[in-house]
């Protein structure tokens, strides 16, 4: 029997409200399949299942708010029979053996009713079909009420509280250090202009894509800036899943992940970024995107900001910032002066895991990579 639990979809999440089941008892599910939609304080998130199996029981009803880690559903493993699963649960069942008519059990499964919560009115306290039917009524009513309520949540206030909680925790627990470096961008800008000149508008790249790819490649040599800090220790991540800070039009932000950025070509990364931004603003992110970022990138250059001093999103151990692409006076190698398009790249990192020297080396590597855009 597999327990499908409410995952943590970010450091700021303590509970979630189940909005919708995408499956019902008896449905076969595949690893990676979206089986539920859960409302966090930031967004409605499509929650994926991470095992193949068959849905056995839905334990949480739409509209219910439950803590992170709560078992939302039980799944049978591939090849596991309901009888075997029941046997595995026998000690538990024996403690509170109840009489339930087969028809009532079938009806409950069909409607996702938790039989433990149904009072039996049949002979000897047996649970009947009528009992199950009664149990579905409040559920249906609750679903209607919750659906109506979910349509007008005070999302902005909830999101602000969640961001404040996460950032307060970050500033309280993480000894940040900050570094920045002004990076010449002439080569990257020229390369991008040439690349886009030969592309239809639907296939053009943004500078942000070059920056993301450079960050991911640079992080490959800096595991102390990539990963998590959990239970008093750094847990480096072999993969680089970049959280991309995306502002929402109604206010607030989310920072979902693009997975394995170092492995993606620029075109694929551009498509992934466009898709992520579109879905973030449409409120259809997936649970893995919310929980997997190993480091976050915040690009505030769009508004003309010179440099960014970002706050680490726990449990991550670093965050990278980019300011606006801006012409600045630049001293060349031979002592000459020229006007250079530049960007200020910055890093905020966790002193429990790394020191400024490492952060400085990372920024130097990031700057170097951006001088060779054709290799990104």
């Amino acid at each position, binding site marked *: 029997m597999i327990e499908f639990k409410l995952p943590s979809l970010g450091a700021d999440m303590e509970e979630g409200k189940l909005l919708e089941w995408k499956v019902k008892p008896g449905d076969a599910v595949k690893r990676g399949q979206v089986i539920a939609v859960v409302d966090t304080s930031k967004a409605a998130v499509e929650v994926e299942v991470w095992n193949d199996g068959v849905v056995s029981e839905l334990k949480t009803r739409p509209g219910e708010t439950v803590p992170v880690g709560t078992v939302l559903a039980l799944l049978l493993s591939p090849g596991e029979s309901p009888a075997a699963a029941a046997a595995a649960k026998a000690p538990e069942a024996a403690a509170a053996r109840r009489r339930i008519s087969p028809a009532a059990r079938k009806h409950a499964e069909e409607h996702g009713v938790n039989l433990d919560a149904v009072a039996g009115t049949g002979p000897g306290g047996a649970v009947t079909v009528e009992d199950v039917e009664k149990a579905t009524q409040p559920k249906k009513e609750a679903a209607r009420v919750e659906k109506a309520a979910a349509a007008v949540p005070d999302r902005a206030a909830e999101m602000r509280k969640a961001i404040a909680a996460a950032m307060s925790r970050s500033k309280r627990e993480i000894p940040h250090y900050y570094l920045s470096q002004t990076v010449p961008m002439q080569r990257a800008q020229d390369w991008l*202009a040439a690349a*886009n*000149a030969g592309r239809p*508008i*639907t296939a*053009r790249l*943004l*500078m*942000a894509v070059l920056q993301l790819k450079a960050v991911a490649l640079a992080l490959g040599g800096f595991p102390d800036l990539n990963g998590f800090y959990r239970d008093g220790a750094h847990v480096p991540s072999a993969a680089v899943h970049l959280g991309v800070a995306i*502002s929402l*039009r109604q206010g607030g932000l989310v920072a979902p992940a693009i997975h394995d950025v170092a492995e993606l070509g620029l075109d694929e990364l551009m498509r992934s*970024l*466009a898709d992520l*931004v*579109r879905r973030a603003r449409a409120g259809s992110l997936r649970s893995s995107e919310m929980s997997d970022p190993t480091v976050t990138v915040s690009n505030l250059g*769009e508004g003309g900001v010179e440099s960014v001093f970002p706050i680490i999103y726990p449990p991550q151990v670093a965050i990278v910032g980019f300011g606006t692409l801006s012409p600045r006076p630049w001293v060349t190698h031979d002592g000459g002066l020229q006007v250079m398009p530049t960007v200020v790249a910055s890093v905020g990192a966790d002193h429990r895991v790394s020191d400024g020297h490492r952060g400085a080396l990372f920024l130097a590597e990031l700057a170097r990579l951006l001088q060779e855009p054709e290799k990104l």
Partner: protein
Amino acid sequence: MDKATIRQQVLAELKRIAPEVEEGELDAARLLRDQVDLDSMDWLNFLVALHERTGKEIPEADYAKLDTLAAIVDYLA
């Protein structure tokens, strides 16, 4: 296509990207990105939508010309 029609198409696509935009509050002669919060992804999506709606090719080298609502309408006309 006349300019009034193009202007309506431009505004329709702009509102699709930025639903908070009120047509009456836009100054056609002022820089569009000073009036509407559009990041580079929004801007690209906006131009892609205009391209798909009008069939007009918009090379990246021309982006700088498309700085006001009036300029965009003229460019597409």
